[in-house]
């Protein structure tokens, strides 16, 4: 993934979904729903591999 030269803050990216209106709010809700449910979803080996990055908002070095 290509990164911008500006250090885009996650909060500033997420809030844009809300600003975008109804369709954006759906994205926003989905984002949080996925986050809420992710610890309970059973993962296949490949899914676990693909989501090996820190979940959104994870604190510190807890991995």
């Amino acid at each position: 993934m290509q990164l911008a030269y500006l250090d885009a803050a996650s909060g500033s990216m997420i809030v844009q979904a809300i600003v975008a209106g109804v369709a954006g709010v759906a994205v926003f809700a989905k984002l949080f729903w996925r986050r809420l449910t992710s610890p309970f979803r059973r993962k296949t080996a490949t899914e676990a591999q693909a989501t090996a990055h820190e979940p959104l908002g994870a604190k510190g070095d807890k991995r």
Partner: protein
Amino acid sequence: MGPSTSGVGTEPASFRDPASTVFYLDGHVLRGLSKQGAADYEALTATRFFPQAVQAGQIVGTRTVPEEELPAADGDSSWAMVLEHDRIPVVSYPYEWTFSMLKAAALLHLDLLQQGLAEGQTMKDGYAYNLQFVGARPVFIDVGSFEQARPGEPWAGYRQFCQTFLYPLLLTAYKGVRFQPWLRGAVQGIAPGDIRPLFTGFDVFKRGVLKHVVLHQAMDARFSKARASDTRRELQRAGFSTELQAATVKAIRKLVAGLRWKAGESAWSDYQRTSTYTDAEKERKQAFVRRSVAAAPAPLCYDLGANDGTYSRVAAEHAGYVVAADSDDLTVDLLFQALSKEGERRILPITLDLCDPSPGLGWRGRERSAFFDRDRPDVVLALALIHHLAITGNVPLAELVDWWHGLGARLVVEFVDPEDPMADRLLANKPAGMHGDYRRAVFERLLEERFQVLEREELPSGTRVLYHAAPKPSRA
């Protein structure tokens, strides 16, 4: 623009984006592009909106420089492409703009982004410093900002846009607080966490506050440790699209377009009535200014204490470009609105406190240059100004004359006698005798030490004298 007009010099504010760097060569403004930057530029020139915006003067005039025209002295062969930009006559910064100017710049920025998004282009940033004014017209100068939009990504410049455009505008529109000291206080603008505590109670129901301030700050605090690349990926998966980015920008544009500075509207009528001149006196003064400016070539004129811009307009008849500076935001804002309606391109209104002019700011104090280091004027107008600086500002007359001499320009100055009603009013605020040397004879002696007086004229009131003077060579 910039400190260097001969030889090669890099723009001290152009180092953050490695894909695009501005430098100066013999007075030309050039931009070196990396391989990626060059690819972005080529995609940009293939759009419909870009050439139209350049043609309309909304984006700075830009052309590619053939490699053989670049002197070897430039040395840096790492650029994949070099562009040349039209020069901005006099650079100004957002903390020198008024509410209407910042708003006009914000709207142009959003318009260009909207047009870009319609053709698959986005902007890497949302920085107020990427706009300049040519006269009263905003111009977008950072051609390197454009890049091809990547599907599923939000606008990378949104936060910067909030910090340097939206929050300053909200601060003035909703709280009646001048934004200029805040922008001057930090070149990166006002952070979400810094603006949030200012909006209390019913403020949160004002348009835009809940989303752009309250929620933005909350999300910012909540996700401060999240990695941007993860967030991008998750947003993409949740269905964020370029259409949503366009919807975001459209919503911000609507919000900005509706913002008003209340003081700027109510004071309009009061303002037009306050004038202490008779028509005859005004005509004599205008004729003097006209004669003085026309007496020698004047590519650049500073009108210091420009007020409603009457004399800036007179100066513009013979000067190439005029900077109309005044410390009263409201007056400057009204002047901007008037000039803007006329499509004026040779008079730049700015708000500047002459007792506290813009210093050098940003990285090494050089990223944004101090106002009086920026350019060399050819003629300086200081009309109905001296009593404000000498009496209210307590600046000694000798210091004032020395300052004007240091500008190295011809000077058109008005001395306002202590007996003049305006000066008398200011003196009444000071202890008796404090400004005992504020007298015409003292001023003339000081002026003649450093300047050659070319013409002087006493106005009919008998309490005001105009001088046109040329600086004598500096003493060894």
